């Protein structure tokens, strides 16, 4: 049983890194007021470029860097369209996802199915060997690839960035009320560009993590919707970095259960009166495919509760999210 739980913990943590990275990036972008629906495309671009570079040079770190930059480059385009041209943010994002999928499928053809030696699991120096011994979560958390550690580290970093730096404060203000921020002398365009590009860098990292650490292969569409989950995750986390971790683990757990519970069935004893009625329902609810919808349903609920219950001023959503801004135009 403990082997099962440990395995589940392992799978959860493994599945969560992608979401943490992509989610944090999307959070930063949305905090500045720009919705980025192109995460999936940016992740793919990061995954492919990271994979290719590592295949050629043999260095996963170089691959990771290039993957990160690739995501950032796509995000630059998104920033240009949304911030400078005031284009519809949703359309631009979807376009970038399409572009990412198309480009990576097209150019990634030769590498389909190849594998690469990317990041292997390591323990932290000195304290690592002790931490791994912690029951259940020890091997899950402390025997991981470098990108897993980086993702965890980034959570407090992003929190500090948003709440304890001037740039973070300005970014938040730009996402709340760009007109006011502009009047206070803040460069709204620069802040949004910065936020969107950071989002892209993180997305690129998430993708590179997939192809270099998580799976160490390339196949087209390997992000498997994780980019979209990241968007949902940011809503679930109500735009707070700390909750991204919680959500990522939750979504990762649901994902892991899918893999692990193929053989598991919970049923009531056949003799009880209600079992005939309840068993099919329980089976349905515990069906792995059905369970994969739970992250989305929960996100929907969170979204609804946040909006419906909110006293207007306390809306968690950045007030200027999805609205484009340009000076002198009402």
């Amino acid at each position, binding site marked *: 049983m403990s082997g099962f739980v440990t395995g589940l913990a392992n799978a959860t943590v493994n599945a969560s890194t992608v979401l943490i990275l992509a989610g944090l990036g999307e959070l930063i972008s949305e905090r500045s007021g720009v919705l980025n629906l192109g995460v999936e495309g940016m992740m793919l671009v990061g995954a492919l470029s990271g994979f290719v570079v590592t295949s050629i040079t043999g260095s996963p770190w170089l691959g990771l860097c290039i993957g990160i930059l690739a995501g950032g480059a796509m995000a630059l385009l998104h920033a240009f369209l949304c911030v400078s041209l005031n284009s519809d943010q949703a359309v631009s994002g979807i376009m970038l996802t399409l572009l990412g999928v198309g480009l990576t499928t097209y150019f990634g053809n030769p590498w389909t199915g190849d594998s690469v030696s990317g990041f292997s699991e390591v323990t932290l120096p000195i304290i690592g060997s002790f931490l791994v011994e912690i029951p259940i979560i020890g091997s899950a958390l402390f025997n991981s690839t470098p990108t897993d550690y980086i993702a965890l580290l980034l959570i407090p970093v992003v929190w500090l960035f948003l*709440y304890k730096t001037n*740039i973070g404060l300005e970014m938040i203000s730009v996402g*709340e009320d760009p007109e006011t921020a*502009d009047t*206070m002398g803040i*460069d709204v365009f620069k802040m949004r560009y910065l936020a969107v590009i950071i989002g892209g860098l993180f997305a690129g990292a998430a993708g590179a993590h997939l192809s270099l650490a998580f799976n160490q292969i390339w196949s087209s569409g390997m992000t498997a919707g994780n980019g979209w989950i990241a968007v949902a995750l940011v809503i679930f986390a109500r735009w707070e970095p700390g909750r991204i971790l919680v959500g990522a683990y939750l979504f990762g757990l649901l994902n892991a259960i899918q893999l692990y519970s193929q053989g598991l069935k919970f049923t009531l004893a056949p003799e009880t009166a209600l079992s005939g009625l309840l068993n099919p329902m329980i089976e349905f609810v515990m069906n792995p495919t059905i369970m994969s919808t739970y992250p989305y349903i929960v996100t929907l609920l969170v979204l609804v509760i946040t909006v419906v219950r909110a006293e207007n*001023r306390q809306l968690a959503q950045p007030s200027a999210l999805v609205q484009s801004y340009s*000076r*002198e135009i009402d």
Partner: protein
Amino acid sequence: MSDDKFVRMENITKTFPGVVANDSVSMSVKKGEIHGLLGENGAGKSTLMKILYGLYSADEGDIWLDNNRLEMDSPQDAIDAGIGMVHQHFKLIPRLSVSKNIILGKREPIAAFKDNSGSESGVLHSLTSNNIVQGLASRFTLGLDTPEKQIQQLSDNYGFNIDVTVPVWELGVGERQRVEILKALYRDVDLLILDEPTAVLTPTQAERLFETLKTLTDEGLTVIIITHKLDEIKEVTDRVTVLRDGRDIGTVETSEQTSDDLARMMVGREVLFNVDKDDVSVGETVLNVSSLRTTNDRGIEAVSGVDMSIRSGEIVGLAGVSGNGQKELAESLVGVRETLGGSIEITGDDVTNESPNAFINNGVSFVPEDRHRDGCAGTLSIMHNAVMKRYADSEFSDGFKLNYEAMEEYADTLVEEFDVRGINDVREINAGELSGGNLQKLILAREMLREPDLLVANQPTRGVDVGAIEFIRERLVAQRKSGTGVLLLSEDLDELFDLSDRILTIYQGEIVHETTPEEADRQRISLEMNGGKEEVKQPTQIAADGGRSGF
């Protein structure tokens, strides 16, 4: 007060598509004076000051501050030059605290890295005062502790009575304005520009403001105050520059002018706003409101038990300072705002909490305050907008289908009867292309020509050129004669006195006073608009203020 021209704006010209906002305007301000900028809506005051504050760039002209020529591309440049602006619509972020709102954009690093020159020496000091380190520290740290204390100190010094650690959404209107002033003071400005600062204040709050301004100018600050209110100009300014239609008419010593002189400068001709009002016999009750209560957009109670009635053939004026519930009252009378309690009857039918449609079908017409947001669809044609309230009538729709020829004819009729200018084809021109006055006339045409029983008009002459204002007022009176009951909400007491048969005063969501123009005492109404008693400075006043004074 020295004679130096501390601020000089010379030959400023600024054009927007279709309108010359500032036409070679020149203005100079002396150091330490309170300088008024006077003009009607559309005269160009706001534009001129936005140029001074770096929000707009002038097409032509120069700006000089203390004999330095200023090149400003953004508000940051203005801030750097020592210019601060308190806007009509507050530039505050509700989610953030007062102090965070104030330090926003200053990029102060935490205390350890703050550039304290002089007292320190040695390696640590040379390390922290290095440019690169300063740059990084100002970006990647957040200096809040010391500034917060300083801001609180500043606030207390001026008697502002604000806790600077609370988020702005907890504050009321008067307090938020004080935060705006604090913002400027904290940045050590030399010039403070205030844009229609009393628009959302009660008269007593306005007094407080003026006192504060006088204290500040005594200490060397220079103030420019934009306003269209003559009594304010008279009360607080030393000199005043008058703008009209984008041009500057001149700068005068306030003490040497009467209100009439100033009004003439603003308007350019003797404007006789005396509309001929016939005696009309008042008829049946068209509107009966009882114990009405509603909330505003922020969920706070805005209308607190209003009783009133309007009869056919009378104009009832509603006086009050913006933010006392009149907007919410108007909206609930046309069905656009839900009511918490009480009842509304239109010509005897109870329509409480019915849909806007029910109100429209019961003969209610509405001229909203914000014509672009609520009164028309700017991207659609004049024709589409003309039939906005009547498209379901049998005249225009036959089952599912629409009769476009009839709609076009109707639109032409509206345009013609109400002298809406600038339209050659009602199908081709969009409503958003019309000027303020013409759009307002179109909306009025639409609302009036359907022969309503009740017409609610919220600031119908605001932002409209003088010629259109006269036209609109005449039409209101004509509508009264044809039997409509009119509720007129206006910030212009003269207008109310001129047009109304009865005048009600609203304060904090209640009708506190009722009178007629003949019996009315202007002073009394002004006082009633403030609750009829002096405002006492108490901590609890913040809560009362915060709840009631609207936004």
